[in-house]
């Protein structure tokens, strides 16, 4: 009986062959690479639209309605400082107006609100209530959308003892607008998600064209890594290129255009710009799609099972 020798081939030639066969595969399947990169590009853009739809809904929920901040001032704060603080707050973006409400006026307003029960305030001194600043915020992300942040900053500002954040219910028109926005958001998310899914399936289908290669490699005794590795690299490369092209194209298109107004109709575009041009979102998206592309390449070149490919029962 023939004896078995230990594996004599070193890792060097195998690595060299791996690189060689992978690059040859990319060259031989240029069309597949381009087609799958285009499919991944479409998938990226569709996913961006889907995410933009979701973000628009979230920002609409935050920025709708009206909000008023009431800052309670320290009694010891000089009048000049009080007026300067009011003027400074009035210049902040998103602030519609600031009104100084003296202690006496605040007490008078409370008496009026109590009506017949105002007698409970009889004997109360004039300085019982602190002087306050009533700050009205504009609708939108810069105004109402930043109410919590502004309240937190005011609480940490010298001369202010406390801050009340008063939100009012949205009026009927605003509610209708929100419902319309909600339906639009759902529609955009469904459309974006569907297009992205179809594009990804298309990319997987294109990558499956490499199954013929995988069949040859498997028949000649290449390991699973060598059989599927070239397709994995091709899938990852196609996804990376496609995602980068999509992100770059959207950035160039939207940044080169006119400034976007903060109107409901343009909020989708605004979210799209913010989603793809700011933060780490784009890096995460490109990285995730690259991994997905590699996985699709591997999965796409899996060969149909045959008896000979089944696991033998353990000895």
């Amino acid at each position, binding site marked *: 009986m023939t*004896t*078995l020798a230990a*594996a004599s081939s070193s890792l060097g030639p195998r690595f060299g062959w791996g690189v060689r066969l992978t690059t040859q595969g990319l060259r031989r399947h240029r069309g597949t690479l381009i087609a799958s990169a285009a499919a991944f590009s479409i998938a990226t853009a569709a996913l961006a639209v889907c995410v933009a739809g979701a973000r628009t809904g979230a920002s609409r929920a935050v920025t709708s309605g009206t909000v008023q901040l009431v800052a309670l001032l320290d009694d010891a704060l000089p009048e000049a400082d009080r007026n300067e603080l009011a003027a400074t707050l009035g210049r902040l973006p998103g602030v519609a107006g600031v009104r100084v409400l003296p202690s006496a006026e605040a007490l008078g307003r409370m008496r009026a609100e109590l009506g017949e029960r105002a007698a409970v305030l009889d004997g109360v001194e004039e300085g019982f209530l602190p002087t306050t600043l009533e700050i009205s915020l504009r609708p939108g992300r810069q105004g109402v959308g930043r109410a919590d942040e502004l309240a937190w900053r005011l609480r940490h500002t010298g001369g202010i003892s406390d801050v009340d954040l008063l939100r009012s219910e949205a009026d009927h028109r605003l509610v209708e607008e929100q419902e319309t926005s909600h339906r639009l958001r759902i529609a955009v998310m469904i459309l974006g998600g569907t297009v992205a899914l179809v594009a990804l399936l298309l990319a997987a289908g294109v990558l499956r064209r490499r199954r013929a290669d995988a069949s*040859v490699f498997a028949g*000649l*005794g*290449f390991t699973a890594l060598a059989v599927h590795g070239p397709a994995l690299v091709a899938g990852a490369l196609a996804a990376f290129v496609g995602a980068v092209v999509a992100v770059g194209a959207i950035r160039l298109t939207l940044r080169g255009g006119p400034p976007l107004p903060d109107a409901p109709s343009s909020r989708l575009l605004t979210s799209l710009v913010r989603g793809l041009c700011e933060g780490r979102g784009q890096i995460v998206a490109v990285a995730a799609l690259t991994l997905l592309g590699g996985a699709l390449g591997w999965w796409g070149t899996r060969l149909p099972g*045959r008896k000979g490919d089944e696991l033998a029962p353990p000895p």
Partner: protein
Amino acid sequence: MLRLVAVSLRSGGELVLDALTVEARAGEILVVEGNRGAGKTMLLEIAAARRLPDAGEVWIADHDVTALQRDSLPFVRRNIGFVEAQPVFLQRATVLENVMLALAARGEPVAWAREAAMRALGKVGIVGLAAADPARLSNGARRLAGIARALAGVPPLVLLDDPSASLSAADSGAVLSALIGAVESGAAVVCASADGAFVSAAAAAGARRLRLDAGRLVAGAGTMVVLPGRRVRETLPERQVDLGKVGS
């Protein structure tokens, strides 16, 4: 080198191989004859570790392939030169690159693989087609390219399904000479063929003949014809088979 023990296989409800026992030793050519549907192709696929039988044992060197895990099968397959009924090649790659693949699977250095691939192409007489695209070749030329790939580097076991199909008499002769060369290097060669002329020529060159009919061995078992002029099994050393990290 190759030993099939009581191998049975069913396909589509039909019994294709019926408790078949066949052995091919290093340094001999075994020709399996039989009509279409006799089970020759299935026999070769099982011998090539590409298909598992329903019953029986398949021994290659001293490993029972039926007991190996799936991850181990590539280490067996890379030591087998296998020519399918219709050889499959990489698309948009040259004949030379396709032949070199067999040596790439064994991790041979690129320069040596190119040299060995050219030698194999020379043995079957198609050196001139080294730069050709297999997809543009005739059926006969594709078969010769497949045989060259199977013989490249002379693996310890060579299996050929109908090696003379679509070939001229001259090409068949070249193939037979190449197979004899492989045997003289110590390989075991198993051919399945329905071509009477090729079988006769192979027998005249010293091949052992078996006949299959409906998955059963009907003639030739036990006959042993050695290559003319030398007792191959006695004069050739046993080949060192590199099955890598095969584990059962």
